[in-house]
C-alpha cells in the first residue's frame, strides 16, 4: 500500500447493490493502492447526494445517470456544472408488480412470460384497459427519484406497450427502503428500483419482478460517478486515481468467484444492510426467478465496457427528459447534455492503450445504441431531434 498522495476525498453513496464499486474499492484497498484516502458517506436520499456534492461536502458521489445532466440543466435545483467521467455498471434494476396485479396479468394471459417485455407489457395494457372499463382506480407505479434511469426506462416500456404514463397510470416516489412495505400495504401497484429491493419483494412474497432493465435496453446508463466540473478540472490527478481504483473494484465485483464475499460485505449494516441472500439473488441475476434474463446479464459491474460513460447514453437520458416534459428541448440544452458523460476522461485515466478501451470502442455500435431496444427501435446519438420526433407517445412536439 502506498501512502496517501492526495488530500482526503469524501464520497457519497446510497445503500444499493450497485454502490458495490465504492465499498469494494475502500474495503479491498483499491483506493489506497492508488494513493487515495477516501471517506465514504452513506446517504438517505438522492437529493442529499446532489446537495452535498454541490456544496462541497462530497467531492464526488454515486449518482443516478440523469442527475449530473439535470444539474447542468438546472432542473430542480441550482444550475451547477457536473460531469460523469465513469459509469459504475449496467443493468441492476427491475420492474416489480404486486402479487395481486401479477394475478390479474396471469388471468388475462395464462402463458405470461416473465422477462419478456413485449409479452408482459401486452398483459399489463389489457389489465389497465379492463380496469378502466370497470371504473377501477388507476394503477400507481413508484420510482425513487424523478431524474433516474428507473423512471425513464419504466416510462419507455409502458409507452412501448401502449400505456400512456401519467394518463393511464400514475407515478409516485417512494424511498427504496419503503418500497416493499408500500407494495404490501397497497399504496402502490408496482415499482422500478435498483437492487436488492425487487429481490426482497420476491423473497417476502409481496411482489414479483416481471422484467429487468437489461430486458428493455442493456446499454442504458444506470449509476455514474458524478462530480462538479470545477472540482474535476482543478484535481485531474485525483479524478484519474478515483477512476483507476474504481475500475479495479468493478473488475473485482464482476469476477464470479468474488460474488459470495461481495454479498457478505454488502449485507453489513454499514453498507446495504439487507440479507446476503437477497443481495446474492441480484448478483447472480436470479431476480426474475422463472423468467429468462435475455441475452444480456441482469447486471454487470465491468463486463461489456460497463464503465465507459458514453456521451450517447447521456443524450438518450436527455431525450427522455424532453420526451416526458421534464425539460424543454433546445439546441443549447442538447449541447449541455452532450458534454456531461465524459468518455475522454475515463480513457485518459486508464491510459489510452488500455485493452478495455479498444474493446469498448468495438462495443459501442453493437451493444449500445442500434437495434438493442427490446421494441426494435434504435437511438442515433447524432440526431436526437429526429429520434424525438419518431416517438409516438411523447410530450415533445417538434
Amino acid at each position, binding site marked *: 500500500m502506498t501512502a496517501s498522495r492526495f488530500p482526503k476525498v469524501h464520497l457519497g453513496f446510497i445503500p444499493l447493490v450497485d454502490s458495490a464499486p465504492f465499498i469494494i474499492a475502500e474495503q479491498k484497498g483499491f483506493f489506497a493502492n492508488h494513493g487515495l484516502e477516501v471517506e465514504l458517506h452513506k446517504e*438517505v436520499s438522492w437529493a442529499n447526494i446532489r446537495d452535498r456534492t454541490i456544496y462541497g461536502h462530497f467531492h464526488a458521489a454515486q449518482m443516478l445517470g440523469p442527475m449530473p445532466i439535470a444539474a447542468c440543466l438546472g432542473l*430542480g435545483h441550482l*444550475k451547477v456544472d457536473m460531469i460523469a467521467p465513469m459509469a459504475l455498471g449496467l443493468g441492476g434494476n427491475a420492474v416489480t408488480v404486486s402479487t395481486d396485479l401479477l394475478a390479474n396479468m396471469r388471468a388475462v394471459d395464462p402463458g405470461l412470460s416473465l422477462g419478456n417485455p413485449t409479452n408482459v407489457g401486452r398483459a399489463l395494457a389489457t389489465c389497465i384497459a379492463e380496469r378502466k372499463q370497470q371504473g377501477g382506480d388507476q394503477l400507481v407505479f413508484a420510482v*425513487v427519484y*424523478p431524474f433516474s434511469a428507473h423512471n425513464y426506462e419504466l416510462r419507455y416500456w409502458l409507452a412501448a406497450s401502449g400505456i400512456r404514463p401519467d394518463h393511464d397510470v400514475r407515478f409516485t*416516489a417512494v424511498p427504496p427502503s419503503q418500497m416493499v412495505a408500500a407494495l404490501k400495504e397497497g*399504496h402502490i401497484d408496482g415499482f422500478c428500483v435498483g437492487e436488492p429491493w425487487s429481490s426482497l419483494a420476491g423473497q417476502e412474497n409481496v411482489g414479483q419482478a416481471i422484467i429487468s432493465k437489461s430486458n428493455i435496453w442493456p446499454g442504458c446508463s444506470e449509476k455514474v460517478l458524478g462530480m462538479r466540473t470545477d472540482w474535476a478540472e482543478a484535481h485531474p490527478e485525483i479524478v484519474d486515481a478515483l477512476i483507476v481504483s474504481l475500475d479495479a473494484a468493478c473488475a473485482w465485483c464482476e469476477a464470479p468467484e468474488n460474488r459470495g464475499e461481495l454479498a457478505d460485505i454488502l449485507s453489513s449494516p454499514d453498507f446495504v444492510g439487507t440479507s446476503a441472500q437477497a443481495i446474492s439473488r441480484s448478483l447472480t441475476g436470479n431476480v426474475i426467478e422463472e423468467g429468462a434474463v435475455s441475452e444480456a446479464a441482469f447486471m454487470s459491474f465491468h463486463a461489456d465496457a460497463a464503465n465507459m460513460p458514453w456521451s450517447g447514453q447521456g443524450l438518450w437520458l436527455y431525450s427522455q427528459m424532453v420526451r416526458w416534459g421534464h425539460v424543454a428541448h433546445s439546441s443549447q440544452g442538447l449541447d449541455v447534455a452532450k458534454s456531461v458523460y465524459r468518455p475522454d476522461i475515463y480513457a485518459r485515466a486508464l491510459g489510452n492503450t488500455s485493452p478495455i478501451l479498444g474493446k469498448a470502442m468495438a462495443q459501442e455500435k453493437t451493444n449500445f445504441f442500434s437495434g438493442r431496444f427490446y421494441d426494435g427501435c434504435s437511438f442515433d446519438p447524432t440526431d436526437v431531434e429526429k429520434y424525438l420526433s419518431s416517438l409516438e407517445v411523447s410530450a415533445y412536439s417538434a
Partner: protein
Amino acid sequence: MSASPVVVVIDENDVRAAILEDGLREAGFVGVTRLSDTTNLMRQLVSLDPDVIIIDLENPSRDVLEQMFQVSRSVSRPVAMFVDQSDSEMTNAAMDAGVSAYVVDGLKKERVKTIVDTAISRFNTFSKLRAELEEARTELADRKVIERAKGIMMHARKISEDEAYTLLRRTAMTQKKRLADIAQSVITASDLLGGTDI
C-alpha cells in the same frame, strides 16, 4: 400574502419537531402541521396543500418531495424549492443544520427567509441540546466507572480512596488516556482475573 402560510414540518424526531413548531408559532406562523408518519406522503401533502415544507435531511422522504415538486402533475400549483443562486448561503447553512425547505412559488421572500431561518436556528438548538445531553450522560457513566475502579483498587491493594484516585489519575496521565478508560481497564482486568467486585 396576508393569511399565515401553511407550514408542514416532516420530522420523525418528536423533540426536534416540537422545538421547531414552537419557534414557528413564536415567529407568528399559526398554520403549522407536523407529519411524523411519511406513509403515502404525497397524498397527505396534496390534501394539506402546504406553502412551505420543512424536512430533516436524515429523512429519505426528501426524494418524494423532489418527485412531487419537479415532475409530478399531482400538485395543482407550481411549486419550487427554495433555492436560487442568491440563496446559496442560506441553503448551505440549512444543510449544515441538517434541514431543507421546499417552498411554493410566489410566497414572499422575507416570509420564507423567516421560516427557514427559524428552522435553521431551532435545528441547531436541538443539536446543541443533544450534544449537551450526550456529554452529561458520558460524564455520569464515567463517574460510575471511576467509582467502581476505585473500589476494586481499595479492596485489592488495601489503599484509601484518595490513593486509588491518585493512582488512576497518574496512570491516565503517563499513558495519555482518559481517566475513565483507565478505570474501565481496571474493571475489565479485575473481571478477567475473577476478582471480587465491591
